[in-house]
């Protein structure tokens, strides 16, 4: 099998498990909506308040629900000794990384696709722009690039799911900053030129951390 076939096998395995159980996506979705509701109470819904904190609420929601689903990506593997099976499989650790990453990417995208309209309805915002779609896609790549690495790292420690947010959130600060700024521009009808300025940072982050995580992932799950 070629590298990409192995990757596809792992991603398909994750997608299939998710399709059968619908565990992660439903739970994370409910969580994401809860975060939006809580923020609604915390900040109020006057149109000025929404314009000010709307993009922030959106990205806090995505980051927190991302932590929740990324944690699950490897804790589920741990449960029935799947991780050992995965490592015994005749494929490189890199293939495991890319496969798991794509799996997390898909499940995060599903959550985001459903959360965005909910967000739009609750806050009366027009979220359906190509700009916002591009921002969300690129930022999510950044999230899963780092998140998959740290999720595998966290599951090997004694504290398990406590470790991921502590490592993940400071590292993705650049993505959150840029995504919030870019979404703010997109929601207020900013030009592509302004949005692209922030997308550059996300692009740099994605590129750097895809490479770095790809290179060091093997060290995280060896044992």
């Amino acid at each position, binding site marked *: 099998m070629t590298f990409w076939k192995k990757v596809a096998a792992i991603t398909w395995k994750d997608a299939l498990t998710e399709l059968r159980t619908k565990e992660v996506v439903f739970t994370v979705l409910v969580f994401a909506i809860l975060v939006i509701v809580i923020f609604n109470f915390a900040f109020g819904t006057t149109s000025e308040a929404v314009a000010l904190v709307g993009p922030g609420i959106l990205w806090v929601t995505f980051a927190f629900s991302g932590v929740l689903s990324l944690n699950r990506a490897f804790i589920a593997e741990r449960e029935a000794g799947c991780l050992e099976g995965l490592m015994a499989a005749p494929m490189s650790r890199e293939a495991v990384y890319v496969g798991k990453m794509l799996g997390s990417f898909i499940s995060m995208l599903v959550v985001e696709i459903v959360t965005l309209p909910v967000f739009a309805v609750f806050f009366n915002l027009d979220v359906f722009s190509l700009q916002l779609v591009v921002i969300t896609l690129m930022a999510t790549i950044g999230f899963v690039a780092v998140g998959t690495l740290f999720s595998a*790292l966290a599951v090997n*420690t004694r504290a398990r799911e*406590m470790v991921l947010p*502590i*490592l993940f959130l400071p590292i993705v600060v*650049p993505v959150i900053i840029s995504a919030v700024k870019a979404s703010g521009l997109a929601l207020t009808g900013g030009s592509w030129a302004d949005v692209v300025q922030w997308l550059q940072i996300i692009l740099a982050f994605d590129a750097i951390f895809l490479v770095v995580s790809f290179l*060091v992932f093997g060290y995280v799950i060896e044992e």
Partner: protein
Amino acid sequence: MNRGYVLRIGLLLLTAILFAVALYMVFLYVPNIKDLRADRVFYFHVPVDWSAFLAYFVVFVSSIVYLRTRDTKWDMIATSAVEIGVVFNTLMLVTGSIWARPNWGTWWNWEPRLTTALVLWLVYVGYLLVRGYSSGREQAARLSAVIGIVGFVDVPIVFLSTKWWQLQHPGALVFETGGLDPTMLAALMVSLAAFTCLFFVLQIQRVSLKRAEAELQMLMDSTE
């Protein structure tokens, strides 16, 4: 007495002398400046920043070398540097706040350099936490080396992304327009040298302590 011991004592003495000279220069040699308050914190703040970054750079390099060679020596160097780096990083945030309060009117603002320093602090505190949560020496070394690499790579991106807000840090003024008096520059340089030596003194001390701990552990294991 072996040569390593002599070198260590020598470095310690050098550091002590440099600190004495730095203190003299900072408080007596440098003239007073009217329009800046708490300006003498500057001579400690900048060297502390430098030492923290130096420490994190040492972590980055020795983490890579550790993953390549699997020699525990490099893990000891990396962890020692993180411990020292976090101390300097904390001092960086504290001295920066002391300077900021009288000059900017607030203890803290979300200026790029401040934000980057805070994010760094969080990353390396996370590093130490993960070490605590790991089971076994080898695992702790391996996992924390990965964090040491990823954390350091993140620094320029964090800085870039936070830079596109307001720029209020006096760094640009001091280093780019040559606004620093020669006496001030001299005092700063001596202080920088002193703190750099202090980093190495602490680093060498901590590594040898770790080595002793490992040896003791080995002896205890062999007697069981």
